[in-house]
């Protein structure tokens, strides 16, 4: 009855007044929807950002992607291949059971047992040989080699409740999905039920209606700061225009990724816009496989000009990054000289390449291409902020030094398939370092492509620098943080000074919200509802 009259009041008063029935409700418009409520189903930022409200990992990444204590209060390496994590005391799951090492073991055990996972979390557990309880409130984790990134990797694996999942009284870890005492393992669809989707986070799952909304309610027994909202509703609104409209009309209180060109209007309408530098670098990759002929390059008698360092440098110097940031990105980006914005872990403070078309032209002439050549620049047109416009601008700048560049812009699904088939001599793409440190871009984008070691999976320019590979491999098994940071910084400089890959700019992430809300903008571009607060 109460509800009905409230709705009637809404109808009379208009939509703006009833978007949130009480003061302590929050509605957020997201640009994409989680594919499951199972935190181990699909390794996708869309899922992670939503599920981090319900579940918590042992370690967390703060807004600057620094690894901070989550359900573990501290951790140390016992030796090169063993880590010890001390669990936080007094933590209770949303079903009332207390956090114990058994939950941790169960969580890591379940990862390989998730069926039909589109992108499995096994990349984080494959190297784990054993997980055992060390007393009542600590776990020991053994890896098959020195793994300094284990604490970072574990921030991707939120802890499930072994009780809610129906595990036996003791769970024993065995690598490769052969754990014992797992009971009947619930699959992703079972997590649509709040009885299974039980975590330790500040909010509980109320309901998940695919395509429509996900509703969370506050968990009063949360160990940390009490949640601000009684109810949080997250709605997927995939198109930009309708998402903006939803904010302007008061349907939602906050949206992620409003289009840059609409920001002025949003501000004029009395909303708050916040932005933050992200960990996403937009770069140009150049085809440098010396054994294969480069596709789509003409006017060079079959040679690949990109194998010449001078040509690569010329391309970098020909690009006016400041102009791209100011005109195309509307100021919501930052010119880049590295693969991660300093001062993140492993950066070395390398300066941004100066715009110098004269020197670029000289370099081209010295390399034997006074009249330039013809090349195709591949780019997605719906993946990064204003991606195809940026590619157009780069192409025009390259034309000015004589490199006749044709832009081939396509929808993301097409672009990435073609890129992975090495169809572009030059392409524009982006990389967000999920670990928040330098080994992520180095390992994926510029390490020599090698199926056996799993290095360079996204290196579709096939850049190869054996010296850098060696340094990177060494760094990745160096436990000492200070030493590792120096090594990563050096490895990055080797690649960039060789113009093996050309950084353009770091994206800035934007959120728009009602006045009276505050959000600590994150470098990983996540929208986490529990970090949205009522401004005091």
């Amino acid at each position: 009855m109460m509800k009905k009259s409230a709705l009637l009041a809404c109808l009379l008063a208009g939509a703006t007044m009833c978007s949130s029935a009480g003061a302590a409700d929050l509605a957020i418009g997201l640009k994409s929807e989680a594919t499951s409520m199972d935190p181990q189903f699909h390794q996708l930022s869309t899922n992670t950002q939503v599920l981090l409200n319900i579940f918590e990992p042992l370690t967390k990444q703060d807004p600057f992607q620094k690894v901070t204590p989550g359900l573990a209060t501290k951790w140390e390496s016992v030796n090169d291949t063993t880590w010890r994590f001390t669990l936080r005391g007094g933590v209770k799951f949303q079903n009332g059971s207390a956090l114990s090492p058994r939950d941790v073991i169960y969580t890591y055990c379940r990862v390989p047992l998730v069926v039909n996972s589109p992108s499995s979390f096994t990349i984080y557990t494959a190297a784990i040989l054993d997980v055992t309880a060390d007393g009542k409130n600590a776990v020991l984790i053994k890896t098959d080699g020195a793994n300094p990134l284990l604490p970072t990797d574990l921030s991707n694996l939120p802890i499930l409740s072994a009780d809610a999942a129906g595990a036996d009284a003791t769970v024993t870890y065995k690598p490769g999905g052969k754990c014992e005492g797992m009971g009947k393992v619930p699959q992703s669809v079972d997590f649509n039920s709040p009885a299974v989707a039980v975590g330790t986070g500040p909010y509980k799952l109320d309901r998940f209606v695919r395509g429509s909304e996900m509703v969370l309610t506050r968990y009063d027994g949360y160990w940390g700061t009490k949640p601000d909202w009684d109810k949080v509703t997250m709605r997927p609104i995939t198109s930009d225009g309708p998402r903006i409209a939803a904010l302007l009309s008061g349907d939602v209180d906050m949206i992620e990724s409003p289009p840059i060109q609409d920001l002025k209007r949003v501000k004029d309408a009395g909303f708050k816009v916040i932005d933050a530098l992200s960990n996403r670098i937009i770069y140009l990759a150049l085809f440098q496989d010396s054994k294969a002929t480069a596709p789509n390059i003409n006017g060079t008698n079959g040679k690949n000009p990109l194998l010449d360092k001078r040509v690569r440098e010329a391309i970098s110097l020909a690009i006016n990054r400041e102009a791209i940031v100011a005109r195309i990105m509307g100021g919501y980006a930052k010119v880049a000289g590295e693969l991660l914005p300093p001062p993140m872990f492993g950066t070395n403070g390398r300066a941004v390449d100066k715009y110098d078309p004269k020197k670029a032209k000289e370099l081209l002439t010295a390399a034997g291409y006074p009249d330039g050549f013809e090349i195709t620049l591949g780019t997605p047109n719906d993946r990064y902020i204003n991606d195809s416009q940026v590619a157009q601008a780069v192409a025009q700048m390259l034309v000015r030094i004589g490199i006749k560049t044709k832009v081939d812009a396509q929808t993301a699904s097409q672009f990435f398939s073609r890129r992975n088939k090495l169809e572009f001599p030059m392409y524009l793409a982006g990389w967000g370092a999920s670990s928040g440190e330098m080994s992520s871009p180095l390992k994926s984008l510029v390490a020599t492509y090698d199926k056996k070691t799993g290095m360079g999976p996204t290196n579709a320019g096939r850049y190869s620098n054996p010296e850098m590979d060696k340094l990177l491999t060494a760094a990745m098994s160096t436990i000492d943080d200070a030493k590792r940071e120096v090594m990563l910084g050096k490895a990055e400089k080797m690649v960039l000074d060789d113009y093996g890959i050309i950084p353009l700019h770091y994206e800035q992430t934007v959120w728009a919200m009602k006045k009276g809300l505050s959000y600590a903008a994150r470098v990983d571009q996540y929208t986490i509802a529990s970090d949205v607060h009522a401004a005091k």
Partner: protein
Amino acid sequence: MIVYILRRIGQSLFALAAMAILVFIGVFAIGNPVDILVNPEANQAEIAATTARLGLDKPLWEQFARFVGHLFQGDLGTSFVYGRPAMEIILQRLPATMELAVTALILAVVIGVPLGVYAGLKPDSIGGRSVMAGSILGFSLPNFWQGLLLILIFAVLLGWLPAGGRGETVEVLGIRVSFLTLDGLRHMILPALNLALFKMSLVIRLTRANTREVCLQEYIKFARAKGLSSTRIVLVHILKNIMIPVVTILGLELGSMIAFAVVTETVFAWPGMGKLLIDSINLLDRPVIVAYLMLTVVIIVTINLIVDLLYSALDPRVRLSQVKA
């Protein structure tokens, strides 16, 4: 009658098979789903494992053979993205779309037919002319633009109605519907109107043309001469006779409204099947795309069959046994 229905079903099966082949080859040509699905941090071994698990490492004919094999067991495949049966994913979305399409259809008929009849009876009046002018706007303005304008006026500027989403739903027989709650209805008005505008214009024009034609018929003149009230003439004699073409067209249009309400659903973030189709295309979720298109064929074929049957009910001259399908 039975022979007729059997023949129709046979034709439908043929259309379904042709669709399956076309769609399967079509989606096979557009990109590799693994490139979209897999996390960028995954290494080559993970990518190869995912490719193998989805069966994408097999040649096209083998994938198709497997698909057909599963089809005969009533299995349209498992969604790459959600890891659930594709049909289940689609059917979850069906109620939202049906609800919207039926509401739009009702709006189109309830508003369109009276306006059309009015414009047909008084073609030269100011009212009649403005109805016709309005109907031209209705089907010449692009659908998405109409939708955005509706949002801008009623949601952003006036703030009367929500800009999108489905609102509060209640479960009836295990299906979530929103037309039974006030909040749900408020959410439905704009998208239903957006979807209905084009059909409404169509109905208006069709009704008007037919009304004018029927008005000149002998039996209308006779009815007038007999001294029947004009209400009775319009309601019984004119309306009944203009309904046949209107029903035919609406039947066809209902099929397309259910299957391709893509634009409206996207603009209003309406969680129906059309939006699912767009999302699935962007994610290259092949099983869902294929299952969706197969389902639309079934829906459209079924609706056409029902229309043909209705036809005979409305017009006694049509005898189905004589129709050479």
